[in-house]
Structures are given as structure tokens and as C-alpha cells.
């Protein structure tokens, strides 16, 4: 067993060469996931509400976007943005940015489904009562429906964030300096401790994701008390 390799490189796994060099490792994975979920939230909110709209020119673009992205592997999505950005933009995009765009576009489609399900799960009477008391459709959405349904969606968002944290490992394939890439670098350099290194990676990812999952479960129980009922 060569656990010494793991301990010697632990700081590289956690934050890369940070104070002297570029940030990397687990810190980079988490930054990628946080930025990804932040932008994906707004994209998903827009797409989800568009899909609920009765106007066909809002409904169909959102429907096509969500169905296409959900039918394609994330890896394909990453390759699309990485290899095809130069064709469309005329210049290459840095790895970090193109991975981030791929994550946002991919996760946005899943967030859109969460938003749609969350809004539909609210009792119909909420919208009817809001319209009945004189609010416009947009006002009813902003002041009555979304505040309630977004709160109910929080656990699903946390779960999506966990998925995204796991998915950031795919950024390794196009060369973003995150945890999985740090692991393969150390593995290629040392050659004698693959089992120890990848087991450590699994444990590191597990700690982050498990903490978030437990948090989301607890939140779910807590929020269940405040739900509007039929």
C-alpha cells in the first residue's frame, strides 16, 4: 500500500497549486458547480416558465430545448461546446468557460423540469384565487405562485446541485484542472498507487455530496409543513 502518495498530494487534491499557482482540485470542482447551478437556475426558471406558457412561440422553443438536452449525454454536450465553439465563434474558448457553458445549458434543462413540476404541483386554487382577487397573470405568478413553489423546489435544487457536483468530474476530459484531473495527473506521475488515489477521490466526492444530500432530506421534511394543500 502506498498511502503516502495520497498524503503527500493532499493539498494538490484539495486546492491545486493555489497560493503559488492556479487554483485546482476540489476547490475548482466546487467553484464550477456553484457557478453552474447559479446560471442554470436562471436559465431553467426561464425555460420552465416558457414551457408552461400558453403562447406557442414561448412554449415550443422551451419544449425543444428541454427534450433535446435531456436526451443527450452530458459528455456529448461538453464536446459540442468545446469542439464547435471555434467553428461558430471563430476563436477557441478556454476550457473552463466552455465546460461551464456546457454545464449551464445541460443543467438548465433539468432545472426547467423541476420548475415546471413545482408550479404544476401547487393546488389550482392558488392561481384562481390570485386571479380572482384582481392580480394579473404575471402578478399572480410573481407574488403568489413562484414564492410558494420555488420554496418547495429547494430540495430538488439541492439534489440537482449534487448531480452537478458529480458531473463536474467530466470537465476533466477537456482539460479543466479540477479534482478528477488532479487525481489522474498524480496517478500518471507516481504510477504505483492508482487504487489509493482513486479511492481517496471517491471519498472526497462522497463527503461533499453526502453532506448536501442529507441537508436536502432534512430541508424536505422541514418544508413539508408549510405546503399549501388542496
Amino acid at each position, binding site marked *: 500500500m502506498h498511502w503516502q502518495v495520497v498524503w503527500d498530494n493532499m493539498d494538490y487534491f484539495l486546492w491545486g497549486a493555489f497560493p503559488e499557482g492556479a487554483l485546482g482540485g476540489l476547490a475548482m470542482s466546487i467553484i464550477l458547480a456553484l457557478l453552474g447551478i447559479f446560471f442554470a437556475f436562471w436559465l431553467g426558471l426561464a425555460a420552465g416558465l416558457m414551457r408552461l406558457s400558453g403562447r406557442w412561440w414561448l412554449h415550443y422553443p422551451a419544449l425543444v430545448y428541454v*427534450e*433535446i438536452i*435531456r*436526451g*443527450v*449525454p*452530458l*459528455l*456529448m454536450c461538453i*464536446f*459540442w461546446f468545446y*469542439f*464547435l465553439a471555434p*467553428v*461558430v465563434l*471563430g476563436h477557441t474558448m478556454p476550457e473552463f468557460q466552455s465546460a461551464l457553458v456546457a454545464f449551464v445549458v445541460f443543467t438548465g434543462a433539468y432545472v426547467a423540469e423541476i420548475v415546471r413540476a413545482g408550479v404544476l404541483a401547487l393546488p389550482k386554487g392558488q392561481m384562481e384565487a390570485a386571479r380572482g382577487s384582481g392580480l394579473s397573470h404575471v402578478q399572480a405568478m410573481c407574488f403568489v405562485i413562484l414564492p410558494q413553489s420555488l420554496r418547495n423546489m429547494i430540495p430538488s435544487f439541492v439534489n440537482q446541485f*449534487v448531480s452537478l457536483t*458529480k*458531473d*463536474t*468530474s*467530466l470537465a*476533466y*476530459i477537456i482539460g479543466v484542472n479540477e479534482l*478528477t484531473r488532479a*487525481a*489522474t495527473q498524480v*496517478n500518471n506521475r507516481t504510477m504505483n498507487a*492508482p*487504487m*489509493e*488515489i*482513486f*479511492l481517496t*477521490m*471517491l471519498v472526497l*466526492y*462522497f463527503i461533499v*455530496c*453526502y453532506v448536501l*444530500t442529507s441537508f436536502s432530506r432534512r430541508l424536505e421534511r422541514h418544508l413539508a409543513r408549510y405546503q399549501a394543500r388542496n
Partner: protein
Amino acid sequence: MNYQFNWQLVLKGEYADWIVKGLVVTLKISAVSIVLALLMGTVVAVLRMTRIRPLQWLSLAYTEFFRNTPLLVQLFFWYFGCNVILPEAVNKWLYAHDYEFASGVIGLTVYTSAFIAEEIRAGIFSIPRNQIEASRAVGLSFVQAYRYVILPQAFRIIIPPLISQFLNLIKNSSLVMTIGVADLTYMARQVESYTFHGFEAFTVSTLLYLGISLIVSFAITMYNKHFMLQVKY
């Protein structure tokens, strides 16, 4: 945008053969993993339902650990790390055969079975408890009660989420390219690096993935329409 499209390149000839070969590998590795994951997932779910505490903990640890770690790292672990623990003879046999394919199958199976176990458990729990009490009361044995009353109802509920897990597995199988299994994604990338015509290669393979997904989601929708209405309490 000065890019010359050449669709003939990926629709005919050698590169088209590569894409088709890749598709076959994707379907093959998915099919093998789906069957194994279903078996493994059922075993893990059943372990969780037994009254034996250590088995329950084992099953809980399995599902929590494999659901909360990235598939990519799991694949690396099976591919790079596993041969240290295995006996020499097993390693020799694996190296002589398709080691990449085997690691890919193990990775996909273990990862997906953790999700499938949770779906099965949720399905069985969604059947009201008094169903089993009633079936025991009319004289069925425990196994008979499960066989004739609980499972037929539970499977109806489980099947749609189960199929979407299969769909996830097919999409996740694109990750096996990282350990060198020549699947659809791998071949698309290969065509890209041979010809610089990535646009065409990625379009074709994306459409193939999309086709599989749409067929499967259509199947789920049809199933829900025809069978889900019958389950009511």
C-alpha cells in the same frame, strides 16, 4: 464561419462504419449492464428489507456511497485501481480478454444498481401496509403475499422510473470512452481527430443518442397511458 460541411464523410464509407460500430458497442454495453444492474439492484433492495441489521447497513452504505460519487471516478477506480486487489490469475484472464469492456460494465452496473435499488424500495413501500396484512389474513404465506399481491402492484409503479434509469444508463455509457471502450462517443471523437469534421460526426452521434432517448421516453408515455390508470387506492 468558414467551415466546409461534408456530410458524405460520416454518412458513407469508412467513417460511417466507425460510427455504426460505436453504436453497436454502446447498445451492447448498455444491454449487458442493464440486465446486471437490475439483478444487483434487486439484491440490494431485498437486503435492505430483511430484518438482519448488518445486511441493512451494508445495503444502505452501498446505495449511499455509489449514488454520491461520480461515475467517472468509479470507472477509473475499477479500471486503474482494481487490479491491485484482484488475484494474479483473474488479472491475467481479464487482460487476455476485453479488460476495458469488463471495467465499463462493472462501473455502469454498480452505479446504476444503487439507483435501481432505491426505486424498487420506493415502489414496494408505496403499497399500503394493510395490503400485506390482508393477504396474510386470507391465508397466503409471506412469499405468496409478495408474489401475488405486493409485487404485481409494485412493479406497475416501479416500471416507469426503472425505464428512465435504463435511459440514464445508456446516456452514462458515453463515459466508458475515457477508459478506452470504443463506443459511440469515442468513435465520434475519433472521426473528429482524423478528419477535423467534428460538426458532422457529433451531429450524427447526437441524433443517434436522441433517437434512443425519444423511443424510450415514448415507451414510458405509452405505458403510463395504458397501465398507470389502473393503480388507484
